[in-house]
């Protein structure tokens, strides 16, 4: 696995790497995990992402594995026919992929305040990387429409001080699950105080959670990664 041309503009943009698809497994009806070979020389900080270039498309995906692992794990939702996520759901094992990276600054910064990790759907990916790399003691809110979408629950539950699945759809929530959106939980359940909020996934959740932080949790820090 070698480095190909650094293609981003500017003085020292992230390098481009070639990799291979080693494995794919379903996580839920419309979500799946890709395992990519880690190219020599590629390093990253948990919370960072790669930009996968394939068939003239380029899309960002957060890395869901720790830097110490031998593979790069990505966690994807298949959102559209014809789009890159649909292609990646089908390309054969062994296929070559090119990515640039690492990109982004959505990394964990330890502080005296409790950390609240709030994700919608596949937005949980950067938190998996942080947890796998040893970050612990956070409050994790995972907003999903159905229980089967609570992927990576074992890893996250093990490292979290509180793991709160937030189910917005379907029937009454099971024990230990919160019935409602992530933002409903922040509005009605999270005790007042100052926190470090890490928000990842849907723009609407990030907007509403940020405005709630302004209103209910003054003195908090807000870091966000908008997927769409």
């Amino acid at each position: 696995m070698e480095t190909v041309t650094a293609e981003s503009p500017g003085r020292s943009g992230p390098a481009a790497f070639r990799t291979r698809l080693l494995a794919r497994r379903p996580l839920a009806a419309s979500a799946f995990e890709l395992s990519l070979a880690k190219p020599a020389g590629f390093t990253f900080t948990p919370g960072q992402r790669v930009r996968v270039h394939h068939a003239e498309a380029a899309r960002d995906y957060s890395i869901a594995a720790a830097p110490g692992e031998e593979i790069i794990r990505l966690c994807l939702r298949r959102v559209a026919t014809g789009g890159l996520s649909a292609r990646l759901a089908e390309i054969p094992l062994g296929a070559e992929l090119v990515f640039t990276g690492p990109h982004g600054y959505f990394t964990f910064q330890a502080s005296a305040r409790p950390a609240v990790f709030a994700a919608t759907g596949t937005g949980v990916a950067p938190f998996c990387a942080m947890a796998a790399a040893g970050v612990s003691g956070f409050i994790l809110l995972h907003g999903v429409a159905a229980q089967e979408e609570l992927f990576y629950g074992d890893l996250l539950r093990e490292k979290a001080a509180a793991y709160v699945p937030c189910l917005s759809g379907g029937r009454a929530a099971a024990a230990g699950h919160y019935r409602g959106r992530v933002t409903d939980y922040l509005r009605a359940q999270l005790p007042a105080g100052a926190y470090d909020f890490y928000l990842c996934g849907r723009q609407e959740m990030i907007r509403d959670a940020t405005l709630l932080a302004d209103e209910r949790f003054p003195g908090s820090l807000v870091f966000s990664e908008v997927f769409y």
Partner: protein
Amino acid sequence: MKIYTGSGDRGKTSLFSGERVAKDHERIEAYGDLDELNSVIGALAASLPHPAEGVRPELEAAQAVLFEIGAWLATSPGSAAAGLLPPVDPQAAAALERSIDRMDAALPSLGGFILPGGSPAGSWAHLARTVCRRVERRVVRLAAAQAATPGDESMQRSIVYLNRLSDYLFVLARHLNRIQGSAERLWKR
């Protein structure tokens, strides 16, 4: 990627270091002015006459340095996020000095205050210079408030860089006016 998040609709925004601050916070004012400077340099680059094409890489290099300075301006001193930022490279100011000396060697000596203006590109360079001075004043104020905290070195280097960039833009304005045959007009009392 979504351009808008909507989380600033009530007059607040996030610093790179995570704090939620009012949009007229001194840091936001500073990097807002820096953004203005970067855009004026973009307009300057767009107006370069053909014989001055060689200046373009210098302007693009300056724009890249301004992004790095902007990240420091958007970050509270001593925050964990400051540890993620590359330090401002002191060589960037040295490179400007070399360019200043190169252009200055071919210019007539200054006989007084010159009226800002001249050719379109020369006028953009003058405008960029004045915006650069405003950014410098803002950064000096911020640096005074955070002296002796981590990141202070990058703030000091930013001040040096902005000071040198203003000088560069002044000499560049004269250089562009000269190669376009636009005579300098001196201030007459």
